[in-house]
């Protein structure tokens, strides 16, 4: 019995239960009794997450600088026009997209390879898995600190030491390749995440399918491409969109390793917004950028939500 089958089963039960609960005969009092346990969480979330966002929308229409008292006035869409006309904003937006796309792609590929390795049987597999997930658990600020200092330092860094037999000497990675350095740290952090998701996919794969394929005379590569990859597809998709949604918020690594510098070479939108709001005190424009990030994220998030709901209903398994 696989996990997926179980999921289908419980989901069917669940739907039946919802149907029952939606019986028009259910009284209003009964409805409230059922709703009771949900309400505190729901109200808490609405208050804490939705109200600030409405304020962001409102602030984005104001010209408001915290260091100039009395500067708060309504300017309509002027902030958005200014943001779109700001070339730094575009550079930072491109950095953000690059950071997300490259990190996700590399982490997915590495995560897939690692998951394939861990799906084999070897001595100490549990230990290796534990070692591999550790980068995802380490406090991101501490991880970024290690990469910035002990790993990538031009003189005392481990990376230069390892690469020195290959003619690499005293490369100052963080100042010469700031964006790449940040991404190395992010890939290190996110590969375990992808690996765990893909490994769960591999382990939920019915082994008899592979056997049947082998009996039919398919080669190893063909088996992998036709069966394993197609089975893993939804796990990879889920990892990609969830990874992207989380990586939109990348802040710790940039703050810690480069402070967005040199200039804005490695700044992403969260860091730039932080700079504009808390170092430049330009609330209006920072809020407008925040709204733009939300719209951008919603595009990715809509894919993520659809995928997660799909894996709950288990429809694509039948296809």
């Amino acid at each position, binding site marked *: 019995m696989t996990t997926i089958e179980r999921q289908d089963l419980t989901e069917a039960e669940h739907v039946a239960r919802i149907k029952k609960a939606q019986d028009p005969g259910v009284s209003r009092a009964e409805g409230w009794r059922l709703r009771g346990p949900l309400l505190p969480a729901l109200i808490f979330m609405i208050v804490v997450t939705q109200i*600030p966002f409405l304020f962001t929308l409102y602030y984005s229409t104001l010209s408001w600088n915290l260091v100039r008292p009395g500067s708060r006035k309504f300017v309509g869409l002027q902030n958005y026009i200014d943001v779109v006309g700001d070339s730094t904003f575009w550079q930072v937006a491109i950095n953000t997209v690059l950071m997300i796309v490259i990190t996700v792609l590399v982490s997915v590929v590495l995560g897939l390879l690692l998951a394939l390795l861990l799906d084999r049987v070897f001595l100490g597999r549990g230990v290796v898995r534990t070692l591999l997930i550790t980068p995802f658990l380490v406090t991101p600020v*501490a991880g970024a600190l290690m990469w910035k200092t002990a790993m990538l330092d031009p003189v005392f860094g481990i990376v230069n030491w390892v690469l020195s037999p290959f003619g690499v000497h005293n490369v100052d990675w963080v100042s010469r390749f700031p964006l790449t350095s940040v991404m190395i740290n992010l890939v290190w952090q996110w590969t375990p995440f992808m690996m765990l*998701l893909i490994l769960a996919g591999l382990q939920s794969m019915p082994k008899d399918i592979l056997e049947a394929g082998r009996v039919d005379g398919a080669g190893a590569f063909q088996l992998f491409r036709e069966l394993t990859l197609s089975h893993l597809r939804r796990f990879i998709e889920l990892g990609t969109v*969830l990874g992207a949604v989380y990586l939109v918020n990348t802040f710790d690594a940039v703050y810690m390793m480069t402070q967005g510098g040199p200039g804005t070479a490695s700044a992403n939108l969260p860091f730039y917004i932080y700079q504009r709001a808390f170092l430049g005190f330009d609330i209006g424009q920072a809020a407008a950028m925040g709204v733009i990030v939300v719209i951008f994220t919603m595009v990715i998030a809509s894919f993520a939500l659809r995928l997660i709901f799909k*894996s709950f209903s288990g429809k694509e398994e039948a296809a």
Partner: protein
Amino acid sequence: MTTTDVQKSVEAPVQKSKVKRRKFDPWGAVAWIVGLGFFFPVFWMVLTAFKHEVDAYTTTPKFFFVPTLDEFKAVFDQGVGTALLNSLFATTVSTILVLALGVPAAFALSLRPVRKTQDALFFFMSTKMLPVVAAIIPLYVIVSNIGLLDNIWALIILYTSMNLPIAVWMMRSFFLEVPGELLEAASLDGASTWRAVREVILPLVSPGIAATALICVIFAWNEFFFAVNLTAVQAQTMPVFLVGFIAGEGLYWAKLCAAATMAALPVVLAGWVAQNKLVRGLSFGAIK
């Protein structure tokens, strides 16, 4: 039936083939090398924390040295105590709040589903997809207006809201594994719903709740963005302390590593304990 049974039944054929194949697997060696490689920065951080500064700065990395606890002592002298206590407090209280709000909500969205369950689930998840950076400006203004700037309670409320959606989804997936008949049977026996839940359901899902709590602990402990923007000295958490520490001690790696180790160790341990349920938390319960 719990997930562990399912996992066992999935892994059972793998176990069998282990007996068949005793010979050395080169891919296993590759896995070990890659695993150690990924772990290396963390290993190095812990190792360096036990060095004297003189051993930390060497062009050829030093693996053997006389260990010392001096650097940890130095970190304590710099006032890491407050930050540790703050992190501990914020993490514990927010996790308790998440469970207090989340367990009933997960119940109402699974075993005794309310109308519009799908809408409520959708809402919870969508809040997790809103980039926090878009909310930080009003949050800062609101928090400073109600006088909670540099107050740990501001972080507790925000960490609760940050982890609640994950917890609701994750715990719902555990509740859904409880056979529905159990609850029916208990209510037929005349037990009130609350008693049935407390005596029949909760013991069954308690491992799931524990795993959920550990995942909330990891995220709350590691959080940096809210903490750096909304706290200063009094309410600073470990990640904020670490950043401040670097500004002052940037040239002292052993000391930095000692501080970083203290910041990272608790959650690494929590994560190792919860690793079998990690995937479920990270995928909102979609993958088990």
